[in-house]
Every structure is written in structure tokens, then in C-alpha cells.
């Protein structure tokens, strides 16, 4: 295994959480100090120039998002951290918050300053009570040390942070649903425009960033754009990324790896290869909504643009690997069940279309499927993709479309045999 620079995980020790003293000793809150010496606009420019792209799945350039924000507008403005990490295969934010939560607190203080948002919410999913408690402790420590609260570090700038504990549902990871959730309304997504930067939480300008994105910001402030660029193996890209490995690998852990690392290195070196000496069949490169990669993609760089070139996405970089005995139809069926169940019920293609796909995949997987069902599956995908209100159903179509593109022969095999060819062999 190559020893890559550890930034977000540099203080990580199994079963322990870094407290303020240790965080400070490792250079913590230097980024905030540096930011407060700059103008808010300069901080935005610095982040923009760093090439940091959102780590929550969509990969939108963070600095550009910040530059759209009306920081000068008077009145309430909000900063929201999206910690509703619920896409199957994704557990990196939890690892980050359990290990070293002050990075998020510092990142939010910097972002709050850059965007001139006095109030920040950290939205954490129900299952992450462990994280909530650690983040709250970090906030308390930071308050006591003057990194949060009134007049932080004597800058005259005030920041308050609140933790919001959610109560389940994947849709809240969609930023406008999350805002509705924070407001105590039904968390349906909102139509865009207006974007949250114009009208977000409580109708006020709001910036929403992922946990890992915000936690990366202090390091950019401390070490500079060039340093951040050079962390990536891909010269077109910048920074490290937390990769959460899962599925049929020998080592299913979360690693901080440079962007641009090959899938092969991730699977074979860091993942320790496929369990039981079996062959690699496919993987989800970045969570349940990202189209499958197969063995032919092993030497591909794990990064935003290279994966888009092969019709997939880096997503959250939660890599779930499937071995040669896995039925990809069954995998897709499981994934689609997840999306159908997590649909908020707002728009028809997602609410009823995903349920229709679930029904079709059930039939095909269990051997009742026909050629007509396969044809119907195709027309369903064609009419759901790009047609739904928000990105949930769009994401759901990722694996289904990849199944049809890469594994149609397996579906036909199911139809011909009247059952699953893998049912005996699967572990």
C-alpha cells in the first residue's frame, strides 16, 4: 500500500476522537486565523482557486458556489452543513466526524466568515447520534476557546453553530429537502430557482455544503492552493478524498486517498482484493446512485471527470465491490428498492415510476419476467431519467441504466432460465 498524505485523517486513531488540545497542536484553527486576516471575498477566491469540488456527491466547485452567495446582503443568512449521509455505500462523513470533528467546526467558522453567515446548522442523520455528540462537544470546546460565539478571535465576527438531529429519510440529503426539514416542514424538495443562495432556510440566503467539503477548507487556508492541487494524483484535479470501501473486499474500511488514484489500487491494495480470492465483477464507484464500473475500468482514475467519461460518477467515493458470483440484477433490485422506499412522494415518476421498476425487477429476478418486461424496464428508465422533480429518481436510474448497458445478457439469462442463474452460487 502506498502511504499517501493524510490530511483529514492525519489525527485518526481507532476508537478515539480528537479533542481541541490535540487538534490545535496538529495545526488546528490556524486556517481560521488565516481566514480572519483576509477579507471574506479573498477567502472565497482562495477556495475557488484551490479547485475544491463538493464532496457530497454532485462535485460542484465549492468556491464557485460560494461566489454566487450574496454575502453582502444584509439580514439573516445561513450556512448549513449537510450531514445526512444516507446513500448506501457511503460512510465517510461518519468516520471523519468520529475521528476529528473540529475540522468541521473550523471549516464552518471559515465558511461563515467567507459568506458572512452568522448562523450555521449542522444537519446530522438519525443514525449518527455518535457523531452528533462528538460534534456538540467540539462546538462547546470551540465556543470556550473563542473560535465560535461572539467576536471570534477578536475579529468582530460572530458565529453560532447548532446541531440538528434528523429522524431518517434519504431525501433530506437533497439540499432543498434538507432546508424544509430544518424548518420543520415536510421535507419535499423545493423547485429551483430560486436557489438556496437566493432563498433558502426561512426564505433567507443559505449555503449548503457537505461535511467533508467543509472539513477540507481549513487545510486549504493553512496550506494554500498549490499544496491542495498537488495532493491529487490527477493533475486536472485537487485534493484528497475519503473513500469508503464496502462489499466483497477483504478490507472494508474508509481511506483518505488522492483523487486520481486508480480503481485497481483502491480495490487491490487498499481493499486487499476481492474476498475469497474471487474475481472482481463490478462496483459502485461512489454510492448507490453511481452507475457500475466493471473489470475493464480497473485502471481508470477515481476522479470526477474520468468517471463521467465512462458514464459513471465519483459520487461520494463510497466504493462497493461485487464479486463474480453476484447477480447484478439482484444488486440493482436491492438498490432500486432503496430508492423507491426513500422517494418523498412529491413527483409522479419517482413515487410511482420507481415502484413500477421495483415490480419489474422483482419479476425479472424471480424468473417471472418476459421480454415484454425487459422492454418495459427500458421505457421506464428512459422516461424517469431527467424527468423527475429532483435528483433522487435521476440517481436511482444510474444503476438500472448501467444494468441494461452492461449486464443485459444476465437479464435475458434470467428470462430464459425462468430464474436467477446466480441463486445457487451467491454467497
Amino acid at each position, binding site marked *: 500500500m502506498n502511504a499517501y498524505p493524510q490530511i483529514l485523517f492525519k489525527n485518526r486513531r481507532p476508537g478515539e476522537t480528537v479533542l481541541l488540545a490535540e487538534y490545535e497542536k496538529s495545526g488546528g484553527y490556524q486556517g481560521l486565523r488565516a481566514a480572519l486576516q483576509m477579507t471574506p471575498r479573498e477567502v472565497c477566491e482562495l477556495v475557488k482557486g484551490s479547485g475544491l469540488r463538493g464532496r457530497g456527491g454532485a462535485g460542484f466547485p465549492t468556491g464557485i458556489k460560494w461566489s454566487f452567495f450574496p454575502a453582502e446582503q444584509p439580514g439573516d443568512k445561513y450556512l448549513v452543513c449537510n450531514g445526512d449521509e444516507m446513500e448506501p*455505500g457511503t460512510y465517510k462523513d461518519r468516520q471523519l466526524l468520529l475521528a476529528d470533528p473540529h475540522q468541521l467546526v473550523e471549516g464552518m467558522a471559515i465558511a461563515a466568515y467567507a459568506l458572512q453567515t452568522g448562523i450555521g446548522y449542522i444537519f446530522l442523520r438519525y443514525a449518527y447520534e455518535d457523531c452528533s455528540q462528538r460534534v456538540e462537544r467540539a462546538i462547546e470546546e470551540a465556543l470556550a476557546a473563542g473560535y465560535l460565539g461572539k467576536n471570534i478571535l477578536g475579529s468582530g465576527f460572530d458565529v453560532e453553530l447548532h446541531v440538528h438531529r434528523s429522524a431518517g429519510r*434519504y431525501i433530506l440529503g437533497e439540499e432543498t429537502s434538507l432546508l424544509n426539514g430544518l424548518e*420543520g416542514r415536510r*421535507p419535499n424538495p423545493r423547485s429551483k430557482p430560486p436557489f438556496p443562495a437566493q432563498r433558502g432556510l426561512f426564505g433567507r440566503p443559505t449555503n449548503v455544503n457537505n461535511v467533508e467539503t467543509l472539513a477540507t477548507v481549513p487545510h486549504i487556508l493553512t496550506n494554500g492552493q498549490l499544496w491542495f492541487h498537488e495532493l491529487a494524483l490527477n493533475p486536472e484535479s485537487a485534493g484528497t478524498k475519503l473513500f469508503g470501501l464496502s462489499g466483497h473486499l477483504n478490507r472494508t474500511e474508509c481511506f483518505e486517498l488522492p483523487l486520481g488514484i486508480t480503481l485497481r489500487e483502491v480495490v487491490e491494495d487498499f481493499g486487499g482484493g476481492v474476498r475469497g480470492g474471487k474475481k472482481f465483477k463490478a462496483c459502485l464507484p461512489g454510492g448507490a446512485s453511481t452507475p457500475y464500473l466493471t473489470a475493464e475500468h480497473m485502471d481508470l482514475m477515481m476522479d470526477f471527470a474520468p468517471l463521467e467519461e465512462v458514464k459513471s460518477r465519483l459520487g461520494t467515493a463510497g466504493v462497493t465491490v461485487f464479486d463474480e458470483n453476484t447477480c447484478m440484477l439482484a444488486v440493482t433490485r436491492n438498490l432500486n428498492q432503496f430508492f423507491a422506499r426513500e422517494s418523498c412522494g412529491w413527483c409522479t415518476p419517482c413515487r410511482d415510476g420507481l415502484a413500477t421498476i421495483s415490480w419489474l425487477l422483482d419479476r425479472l429476478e424471480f424468473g417471472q419476467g418476459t421480454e415484454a418486461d425487459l422492454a418495459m424496464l427500458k421505457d421506464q428508465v428512459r422516461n424517469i431519467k431527467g424527468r423527475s422533480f429532483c435528483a433522487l429518481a435521476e440517481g436511482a436510474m444510474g444503476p438500472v441504466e448501467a444494468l441494461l448497458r452492461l449486464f443485459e445478457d444476465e437479464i435475458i439469462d434470467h428470462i430464459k432460465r425462468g430464474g436467477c442463474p446466480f441463486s445457487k452460487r451467491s454467497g
Partner: protein
Amino acid sequence: MTELLPQEQIDSFKARAAAIAHPHELIVDLLRAIQAHYGWVPDDGVLLTAATLGVLPIEVEEVATFYDKIFRRTVGRRVIHVCDSICCWSIGAEMILAHLQQSLGIGLGETTADGAFTLLPTCCLGACGDAPAMMIGLTTHGRLTPEKIDETLQRERAAIAAEVAK
């Protein structure tokens, strides 16, 4: 567990609601508080939330019924959420679920006769590296095996017995 929420907590929520411009933002917090104290959220819990925050009962119910981790029906002393999403599924979640069902003698959505456990499926718990996983209450248990499940259930049973004795 006869009262929905201790009076001092109700008062504290009332004070917070009065101090903020948008009391609706406390709906989920208050529902979770009632659930933490009472085990689940009965109709009276919805009404209490509405009255405490000065919002409409329907507004509370709209939110309460949206989230899958707010229980609007009675549940056992421990709710076991078994992950059935892709990572856990790929390494044996179905077997884990079968073992739990057999050990507890109940199906999904059911509560054991002694009122100790309720078994529910859940989507990804964010423990994909430690699959297969389940969550009991707010604690995640990963890398499950039948033996580990038996141990965990035994520990929980003992804890419940201690609670009941109190």
C-alpha cells in the same frame, strides 16, 4: 413511562419556541424528545408537540408521518433496525435478518410478546465498512454474526430486565 415528557422539558421547549421566529423548526426535536422518553409518539404526543410549539396538529402529523424513525405506533422497549441496503445485503444481511427473526420469534414490523423488541428494516445505516449492521436504539452494531447477535440480544434483555426492575 406514563408521562409523554417531563414537565421541565415541555417548559424548556415552550421557552425555546417563544424565543424563535419559526417554532416549527423544533417539531422534529420535540417529537424525538417524546420518543426518547415515552418510547414512541402516540396521538397525544402529536397534540402535545402542537400545543407546546403553538403549531397545528396537522403540521406536526405531516412531519411525524414522513420520517421513518418517528414511531407513530407502539414499539417494544428496544427497536432493532436491520440494514437491508446494498453493502449489508451483499454480505449476508438476509441471513442476519433471518437469524434475528428466528431468535426473536417475530417478523419485520412486529414486536415480541414481552414487549422487549420491535424488528424493523432500515435503509443504509452508514456502517457499510462494518456490514452487515443493525441499530438498536441509537447504537449501531456492525460486523454481525449469529453469535454476535445472540450476545447483543442477551445483553439488551438483561438491560431491559434491570430497567423493569427499577
